[in-house]
C-alpha cells in the first residue's frame, strides 16, 4: 500500500483543486449552543493536502470546529464553503471521533470491516492486506481478534484510526486521536498519517492537546481559546 506511488491523475486532481480554491473556507464563522457561543468569528482556509493541527484547552471549541468542518454541526452565522468535489469525484471525509464509535460486541477486525468499501479496493484481500499492514505498523496485528469491550483505550483508539484510514479518505478529521496513546505510539501514528498525506494527498485535520508532539512536524497549527482563533501559523514555530 505505502509503496504505491501517487498516480499522475491524483497529482493533477490535487493541483486542479488548488486552482478551484481551498477545501474549506470559513469567514466570520460562529456557532452557538443555546446561549453559549462555542466558536467566535473564525476565519480559516484549509487547502487540499494540508496537515492542520488544532490545539487549545478543553472547551476551547476544537471539537465544535471539527464537527462544523465534517458537516455534523451547522454554523449559526458566518460563511462556510466546503469544496465538495475533487475533479469529478465527491470528496470523502473520514472521522476519528473523540468517543471512537466502535461496536463493543464486535472484534477489532469486525469493526475495521465497516470500512471495507468494495468500490475502493480491487478485492477484499487487498483491503485485508492494507488492514493488516496498518495493524502491524501500529503494533496491534495480534490483537485484531479481541472484542472491543475487552480492549484497552489505546487499542480502541488505534482501531478507530485504522478504520478511518482504510476508507482512503480525501480528508481525515481526527479529534484527540492520541489521548490514550503513549508518546512512542503517538509518534508512530503521526508517521503513518504523514505517509498518507504524502502518498495519497490526504488532508489531515487533527485536534490535540499535545503541543510537544506536533512541534516537530511540518504543518499548519491553529490555536483556539474560548472559541476564538488566536494563532494560526506553522507548527514548527510553536
Amino acid at each position: 500500500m505505502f509503496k504505491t506511488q501517487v498516480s499522475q491523475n491524483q497529482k493533477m486532481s490535487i493541483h486542479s483543486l488548488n486552482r478551484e480554491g481551498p477545501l474549506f473556507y470559513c469567514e466570520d464563522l460562529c456557532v452557538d449552543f443555546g446561549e453559549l457561543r462555542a466558536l467566535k468569528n473564525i476565519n480559516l482556509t484549509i487547502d487540499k493536502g494540508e496537515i492542520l493541527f488544532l490545539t487549545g484547552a478543553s472547551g476551547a471549541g476544537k471539537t465544535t470546529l471539527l464537527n462544523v468542518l465534517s458537516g455534523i454541526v451547522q454554523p449559526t452565522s458566518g460563511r462556510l464553503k466546503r469544496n465538495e468535489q475533487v475533479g469529478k469525484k465527491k470528496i470523502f471525509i473520514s472521522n476519528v471521533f473523540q468517543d471512537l464509535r466502535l461496536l463493543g460486541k464486535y472484534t477489532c477486525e469486525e469493526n475495521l470491516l465497516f470500512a471495507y468499501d468494495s468500490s475502493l479496493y480491487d478485492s477484499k484481500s487487498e483491503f485485508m492486506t492494507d488492514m493488516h499492514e496498518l495493524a502491524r505498523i501500529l503494533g496491534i496485528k495480534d490483537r485484531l481478534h479481541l472484542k472491543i469491550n475487552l480492549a484497552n483505550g489505546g487499542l480502541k483508539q488505534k482501531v478507530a484510526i485504522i478504520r478511518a484510514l482504510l476508507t482512503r479518505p480525501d480528508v481525515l478529521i481526527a479529534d484527540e486521536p492520541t489521548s490514550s496513546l503513549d508518546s512512542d505510539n503517538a509518534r508512530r501514528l503521526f508517521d503513518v498519517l504523514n505517509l498518507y498525506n504524502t502518498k495519497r494527498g490526504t488532508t489531515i485535520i487533527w485536534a490535540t492537546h499535545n503541543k510537544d508532539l506536533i512541534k516537530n512536524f511540518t504543518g499548519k497549527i491553529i490555536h483556539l481559546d474560548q472559541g476564538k482563533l488566536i494563532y494560526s501559523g506553522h507548527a514548527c514555530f510553536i
Partner: protein
Amino acid sequence: MFYLNQFFKIIVKAPIRGFFLIFFSFVFIFSMGQRPFLEEQFMKLIPENLSGDSFYTLINGQENYLKIADSMRSLPGVHKVEVLTEVQIKEEVKNIFSNLNMTNNLAQLDLNYAGLKIVFKKDLKPRAKELVRDYLTHLAGENNAILGAIKSVDSTEEKKNQMIKGIKDWGFSIFILTMVIFWFISLLLVKAKVLEAAYLLESFQRRSKIALKMAIAGLCLIFFSFSATTLVLGIPKINNLALTLVLFVIGMSFFSSKYHWESRS
C-alpha cells in the same frame, strides 16, 4: 447482496433480537396466509357446546347411576352430566325436602341416593328438555328418580359461556393482533442495531440510506420465503398476505429515520 449480507450479520450478532424477529415474522405470516386452516384448528381446541339450564336428580343408590350418567351424556341435548358427591347430595335433598315442607321427616329418611346434575346445551327448546327428563325417568325407573326443577343457567356458567363465545368470535383475531404487536416490537429491537451499524457504514463507506436498504432487503427475503412456506398447507389467502406485506412495508419505513450516535463509556 451487500445490504442483505449486512442485515443478516446484524441478526447473527444480536441473536436474541434476531430470533424474535424471525420467529414472530414466521408466526405472523403463517397465521395470516393460512388463517382459515389455523382458525379451524383453533376452534377445535375450544369446547363446542355452551352450557345452558340444568336440573338435579336423585337416583336410588341401588341403581347403576354411573351407567345412567353415561347414557345421559350421549344424548344430543345434554351438555354435561356431573355426578354429585355425598355432601352435595345431602345438601340437595335438604333443599328438595324443605321446598316440600318435609323437613321434620328428614331424619327418618333413607339417604342412600346418587346425585346427578344434568346440564342442557345452551338454548335447548323446552320440549327437548322434557324429553331428556322423560328419558332419565325411563332409565332409572319412575319410582327410583326424583327430579328437581329446571334452573336457569347460573351467573358463573353464563360468564364462562360469554367468555367462550368471545374467544370463538375474536380469539384468532386477537391472536393475530398480538403477533403483529410482538412482531413490531421485535422489529424495533432489531432496528436499533441496524441503524447503529448503518450509521457506521455510512460514516466509513461512500454509501447512503443504508439502514433502509438493509431493511428492504432483509424483510423482503423474510416475507417472501415465509410466504412460500405457507404453501405447505395449501394455497394461502392472497388478500391476507397482501395486508401482511403492507405491514412489512410500514415496518421498513421505520428504518429511514435518522440515527444519532450516543456516546457510551
